[in-house]
């Protein structure tokens, strides 16, 4: 019975995704891809933050490198198909992760976060300076979007609709892989490292190597998210790839959705995509202005509503979430469930005073 229900839900989900571009059109199809990109980016960050206990303030490095890797490959290799382009982006990110890993695996906590801030900024500055390669602030375009070409046997043109299916399938596969990754023995060691990396060492696991592997996987999938992002936008610029806010996006998604859960960040990405859409389309500003006009004279209302630009809201959300919702939605749900269970079990183990 339960099995049937799950299969039905699966089928319904797949059908909904398959029909999505037909029902809602290109604009919302692209919005859904963007959400999927953010979800993958957030999950890749959470592999470090939630599962290994390492906060990266510079994950834009990998996102951006994936994006530029794919874009540069497409611009310099004639007739490159979409799959190798995406793979090249991903590999570029993995290589960068492996280069940086020796410098960061020996530290954790604040030092780890700081080093990432610094390296990400270095990449940002470099990308701005190396204008001839990266196009600097103007960026480089990917036009037309490459075809999907499987050994010349099958050629699928990547129009908006086909690209939608391609992106959704690739990202769903990546998310499934990462979910599986957290369930392997290695995933257990990773989580153990988050709780107590000292003991992991004393149990005979190499902390530095383990960190390096998680790091490379996390970087690689952030790169994959970046590559899909570049293909979606058909353009990648230094600001979209490497700037500080790009590193903060996934942190915010993870915080919103819940740091200790695998699926939390995906929900967080959905929140983020909605907020982004809401602000980007100007609806938020209009609503705010209307509300404020009720209370304040119109010129003042205008000024106050101007105050709430995108980064301001980003900052406010970060502050409020850390203050009042530190474990995100997933943590909130888990807490409610635990309370419910505690009531049922009545009691449970009590820690005696030490």
């Amino acid at each position, binding site marked *: 019975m339960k099995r049937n229900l799950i299969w039905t839900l699966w089928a319904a989900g797949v059908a909904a995704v398959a029909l999505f571009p037909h029902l809602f059109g290109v604009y919302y199809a692209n919005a859904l891809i963007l959400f999927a990109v953010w979800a993958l980016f957030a999950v890749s960050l959470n592999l470090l*933050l939630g599962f290994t206990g390492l*906060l990266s303030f510079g994950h834009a490095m990998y996102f951006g490198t994936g994006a530029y890797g794919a874009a540069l490959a497409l611009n310099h290799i004639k007739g490159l198909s979409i799959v190798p382009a995406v793979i090249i982006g991903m590999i570029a990110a993995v290589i960068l992760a492996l280069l940086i890993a020796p410098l960061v695996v020996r*530290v954790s906590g604040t030092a780890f976060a700081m080093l990432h801030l*610094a390296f990400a900024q*270095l990449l940002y500055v470099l990308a701005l300076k190396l204008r001839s390669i990266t196009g600097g602030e103007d960026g480089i375009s990917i036009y037309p979007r490459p075809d999907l070409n499987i050994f010349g046997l099958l050629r699928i043109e990547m129009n908006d609709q086909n690209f939608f299916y391609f992106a959704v399938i690739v990202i769903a596969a990546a998310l499934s892989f990462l979910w599986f990754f957290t369930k392997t023995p290695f995933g257990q060691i990773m989580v153990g490292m988050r709780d107590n990396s000292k003991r992991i060492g004393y149990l005979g696991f190499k902390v530095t190597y383990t960190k390096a592997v998680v790091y490379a996987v996390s970087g690689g999938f952030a790169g994959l998210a970046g590559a899909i992002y570049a293909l979606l936008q058909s353009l990648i610029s230094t600001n979209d790839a490497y700037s500080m806010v790009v590193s*903060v996006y996934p942190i915010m998604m993870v915080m919103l959705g819940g740091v200790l859960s695998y699926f939390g960040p995906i929900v967080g990405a959905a929140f983020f995509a909605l907020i982004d859409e809401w602000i980007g389309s100007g609806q938020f500003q209009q609503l705010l202005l209307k509300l404020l006009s009720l209370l304040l004279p119109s010129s003042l209302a205008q000024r106050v509503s101007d105050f709430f630009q995108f980064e301001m809201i980003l900052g406010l959300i*970060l502050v409020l979430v850390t203050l009042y919702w530190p474990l995100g939605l997933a943590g909130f749900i888990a807490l409610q469930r635990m309370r419910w269970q505690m009531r049922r079990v009545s009691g449970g183990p009590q820690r005696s005073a030490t």
Partner: protein
Amino acid sequence: MEAYIAQGMHGLAYGMVLFLVASGLTLVLGMMGVLNMAHVNFFMLSAYLGYQVVAWTGSFWLALLIAPLLTAGAGILMERFLLKKVHAFGPMAELILTMGVAFIISDGVKAVWGTQNLPLSPPGSLSVLVNIAGVQYPAYRLFLIGLAVAILLLMALVLYKTRLGMIVRAAVADAGMVDALGINVPLVFMTVFGAGTWMAGVAGVAIAPILTVSPGLAAQMGMDAFIVIIVGGFGSLGGAFLVAILCGLLSAFGVQFLPQYASVLLFVFMAVVLAIKPEGLFGEKES
């Protein structure tokens, strides 16, 4: 030769200001274990407040007095009402929270003062050139170096000659110690946090005449300050001082010889140091 001396002085002046910013950051980090991502945003906020005070009163000196105090007040409010509340959730939460505050300040500044560069001219008595060993040098930069040295001496005096300083040093060396000392920890933390933001505030107003006031100020100073505390070693004032001066000189001469890559030089310097000593030059190994 004269050009070198002038560049050297430029570098020294920038290095001193950098140290003013970085020392507050590293003290708070060493003592409270909190890396305040918004620290350089307070620095920028102070520059804007300074600009506003000058716009209203026309007095640079008043700006140098008031703006840093207002900034320190903002810093204390943040420590008291935000940071303290998330302390229990661990360093990650604190980092993310201060990052949020950083965004709020930088966007708030843009909303109030706009995105254009605002000039803040040095007081008339200091906008002259003085002759040092045959080199014409702006008096204001000399004043800047003097101001930084004065604050540095004041800080050294407080740190090494007062009870508060003793507590702070003990706490930086061993965070667990403070609880054992039977002192009012929240008050000490608040004082240190306030003093740190005050120094950043002084630096902000003081450097504004040289760099002009703009929303990019935080990013410009921010990276350098973070590199200083990473390379110098977390919580090490001596390390921060040395590296700040080195950074100042490196960027000044970098501009002279490698104008394209001056900003990259510091990062290369950082990467080299970290590759050899991951805990920074004067940092202690994580146990």
